[in-house]
């Protein structure tokens, strides 16, 4: 059925069923958690930086929730290494939609951007820009 969203193309289903970099890191430079209360999606992102204290070396994630949120986290964990923290903070929802490679319906965009927001807030907390226990996508 070629309708509406082919939101669940092979790539997303693959990342959902076989998440990459799944699990908790032993020695992250920083970690942060977030949730999407309406879906019950939860994501924890662990980030390790290179010695320059700015370039992302490795990302792991853990969590639970819908396929869009989990696949997005899995893909992001592959995309982030090599980026600097300011590059991470500059990412927006278009980058996530591009990364997922599918149209995300307006009601599901919160699921898609959860991992990105968690990583960004984690970076901001690490750099002392904000103070936050938990990221929530509720806008």
């Amino acid at each position: 059925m070629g309708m509406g969203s082919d939101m669940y193309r092979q790539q997303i289903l693959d990342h959902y069923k076989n998440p990459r970099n799944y699990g908790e890191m032993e020695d992250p430079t920083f970690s942060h958690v977030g949730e999407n209360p309406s879906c019950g999606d939860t994501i924890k992102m662990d980030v390790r930086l290179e010695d320059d204290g700015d370039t992302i070396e490795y990302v792991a994630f853990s969590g639970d929730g819908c396929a869009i949120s989990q696949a997005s986290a899995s893909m992001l964990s592959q995309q982030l290494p090599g980026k600097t923290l300011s590059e991470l903070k500059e990412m927006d929802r278009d980058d996530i939609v591009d990364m997922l490679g599918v149209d995300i319906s307006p009601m599901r965009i919160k699921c898609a951007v959860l991992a990105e927001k968690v990583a960004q807030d984690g970076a901001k907390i690490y750099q002392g820009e904000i103070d936050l226990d938990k990221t929530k996508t509720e806008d």
Partner: protein
Amino acid sequence: MKAQESYPIDVAAIREDFPILARKVGGDVTTPGEGEGDTEPLVYLDNAATSQTPKRVVESIVDYYYGYNANVHRGIHQLSQEASVAYEEAHDRVADFIGAEGREEIVFTKNTTEAMNLVAYAWGLNELGPGDRVVLTEMEHHASLVTWQQLAKKTGAEVKYIRVDDEGRLDMEHAKELIDESTKMVSTVHVSNTLGTINPVDELADMAHEVGAYIFVDGAQSVPTRPVDVGDIDADFFAFSGHKMLGPTGIGVLYGKEGVLEDMEPYLYGGDMIRRVTYEDATWEDLPWKFEAGTPNIAQGIGLHAAIDYLDDIGMENVQRHEELLAEYAYDRLSEFDDITIYGPPGDDRGGLVAFNLDSVHAHDLSSILNDYAVAIRAGDHCTQPLHDKLGAAASARASFYVYNTREEVDALVEAVGQARELFA
């Protein structure tokens, strides 16, 4: 499984009255209404959230706006009188429909939620205090749960919740324990919008009255789907929403026993609810207008009248039977999946809705995929978050049926659920 002949409603004829049911979907959602990419016939199974609107209801609203649009209770000119009569008669029609004594007992609100808040503020804020108890159920909709919870915080009263058992029914022994001498209000949902449970509200009313408490019955899912008589229940307060019973949005009903409403302070102050005003003080209009401050939702009240006429023509017994048959059929068919959890009582003892989860597919993913198959269901917590916590699910998928739904649409649902399972297998 029941033979199709036993369905009491001529669904094909009814569907003709609902232009939206001929809609196709599947395209771009940023421009409302049917457009180019919309190719698949809609299967609308989200009636517990909002029902569709028959022509007759829309026409009653058009007639009002084209023929006698004017403010009510304010003008001596003809249009205002016509509007006032129609708006007041809508109250009479509602009273008759739910077995109230008369219009004095029928307050029009925006929806069930506002009716609940009206009582919480106009009655609860004045009557509740430390040492008082409000008894709710674990299956309350947020409309009641959050309202009484916050009111309890304001007044120092305590809130207790009647337990829901493993089959999704109220533990009536627990109810007996909780509804004690300190109880001032029992607020309970009549038909659960998540579990489909039909609660024994008349028994709860007896328990409440035995200790001198009031009972508020949330009829948002019961009035649209079955005959309801507030007198038989002996409810002190009762509420429902027009948009779930073929009516327009923006109109809801608070029923209150006349003596109870009489003793209550107004909720909103302003025009239309006063009798005499001086710079120093004011006195209140008679019931129900004392609780309808400001220009009300006139067109919507008139639309609700038309919706009730439409439902009565079908017959509420028939509506109920139709819902039961579809719910039972859906329950049986969905039970064919071995990794499904269906919440609430068995298929032959529930309202016309089925909430469920698959082990393998998150409810939101399921709803998105069903949307690809043009099947509209609800996915989420259905405004019962604490109940979902108890069920151990952040969200669930819910299909809910109404007078225009068919067995074939249930088949389409089941087919699409099967496709989703395969995709995620």
